[in-house]
């Protein structure tokens, strides 16, 4: 199986590489445009629709420090595609090098079961769950800032902090009443 491995390649000096996986291929482009503008660290962005990644790019691909799965809550296909891609990641990634980002959480047409399912998935894998606003430029900027914070730690560029340590603080936890029916 062509698993993506976290430590099989050498890191670059003052470099951080992020992989954005999104079924719709929309939000990842706006995030990428702002991520590469970061000055303190040299950031490379790889964009994919699903995993596994094609083998042809294996040679030229740098070491991926953080894998972000972007899901649009209004689409069931988005969630299923992200879930299916999880199998192609080496388990080493789940020690703080995977992050889930979710858009359209405020949309009224989103069924509550879907958000609960995403929460359960993120909690079971001990990964952070970030909510983002993809329509406004402010939303995109704040989402990239949060991703950069996690990325710098995951790439080992922040002294005295490791990705595993950070994930203990940022990982998604389930509220105790998640099985209870919601207000509406």
């Amino acid at each position: 199986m062509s698993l993506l491995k976290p430590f099989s390649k050498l890191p670059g000096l003052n470099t951080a590489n992020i992989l954005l996986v999104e079924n719709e291929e929309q939000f990842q482009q706006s995030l990428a445009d702002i991520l590469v503008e970061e000055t303190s660290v040299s950031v490379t962005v790889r964009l994919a629709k699903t995993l596994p990644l094609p083998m042809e790019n294996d040679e030229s691909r740098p070491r991926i420090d953080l894998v972000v799965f972007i899901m649009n809550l209004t689409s069931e296909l988005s969630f299923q595609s992200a879930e299916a891609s999880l199998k192609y990641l080496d388990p080493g990634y789940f020690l703080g090098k995977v992050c889930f980002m979710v858009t359209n959480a405020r949309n009224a047409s989103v069924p509550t079961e879907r958000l609960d399912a995403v929460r359960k998935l993120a909690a079971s894998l001990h990964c952070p769950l970030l909510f983002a606003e993809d329509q406004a430029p402010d939303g995109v900027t704040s989402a990239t800032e949060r991703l950069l914070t996690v990325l710098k730690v995951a790439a080992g560029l922040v002294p005295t902090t490791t990705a595993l340590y950070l994930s203990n603080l940022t990982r998604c936890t389930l509220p105790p009443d998640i099985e209870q029916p919601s207000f509406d």
Partner: protein
Amino acid sequence: MDDSARRLLQRLIRRIPAQMLKPTLDKWDRLTAAHRQSMDFTESKWALTEKLLAICEENEMTVKHITELEMIHVIENPDHSMWYALQLVDPEDDAHSVELTQFKEQFKSHLRELIRHVSIKIKKHTDEAVWIRIAWGDSFSRPNHLKPTYVVHHLQTPYVFVTSLTSKLKPLLSQALVLSTRYQAIKDASLSGRKLTAIRDLLMRQYQQVFPTKYPSSLVENNQNASNILINKEQAELAASRHQKACEAFGDGMLPQLQSAVYKLETKFRDHTNKTMTEREEAFRCVVKFASTNLLESLRHCASSGISSTPGTSLLSSIPLKGRNYFVITDNGPGPSSQTRQPPN
């Protein structure tokens, strides 16, 4: 200026939007400079109508002049009514050499033979289209200018577009068209829509066609990312081949703004989980309508973004392939109203 002319003018000014009024009147060119100066286009529509009526009375303008103005307005803004496409079939030997004056004379004389009181106005637009305005009367009454039919025909092509034509008058128009364009028959092209430019471009294939190639160009990078080497698309080849297949089916670049497609199904109900419906002998009749601000663009986007798998269903790709947006599907294949398109010469 008689009553009908006055009413026609009032109706017309009401139809023309305020900002289009000055340019349309200038194009009409029947008002002198002094008149044009005296019209204050910041006044209300009602005031302008009264002013214009007064000027036209002064100059003793007739219905003929008002219909000129109407025609100018409709040619500029054809998108207010439903247009239907017709196709001429079986050309005679000299069908491809019919030119404008011959067509005009023939059409007018044939239509006047068929119906006594009819008012015809023919105008050639800059883009090779011939516009015909017909006001119908009958053997007892004068032509009714309040409900004219507009016909657009591109010479030397077999395509005709009509609007506001009742089914009673359709055979007369068809007869006149067939005789004056030197074809043998005319049929309904199963294509209709509000935007004339859209259905014309779709039928005459005036958009960028993409032909299937075995070796598409090796450019895999998205234009945006080619300029920024820090952003890399992992599955760029897959995305490019999806895009290629989608463009092969629907075309590249700006697509004609078709706004709806209707499929009339007369097939048997097929669903394994629903025994009662499947057991029925007769066909399950239903009508499926797709509507969008730009239907072809949305279908192409579905295919190129991977939401629908490529190659897509031939039912949807028949819209640009056959140039129609009304289909009747029966169990034996597409119904009798579909025929393969004759390639335009």
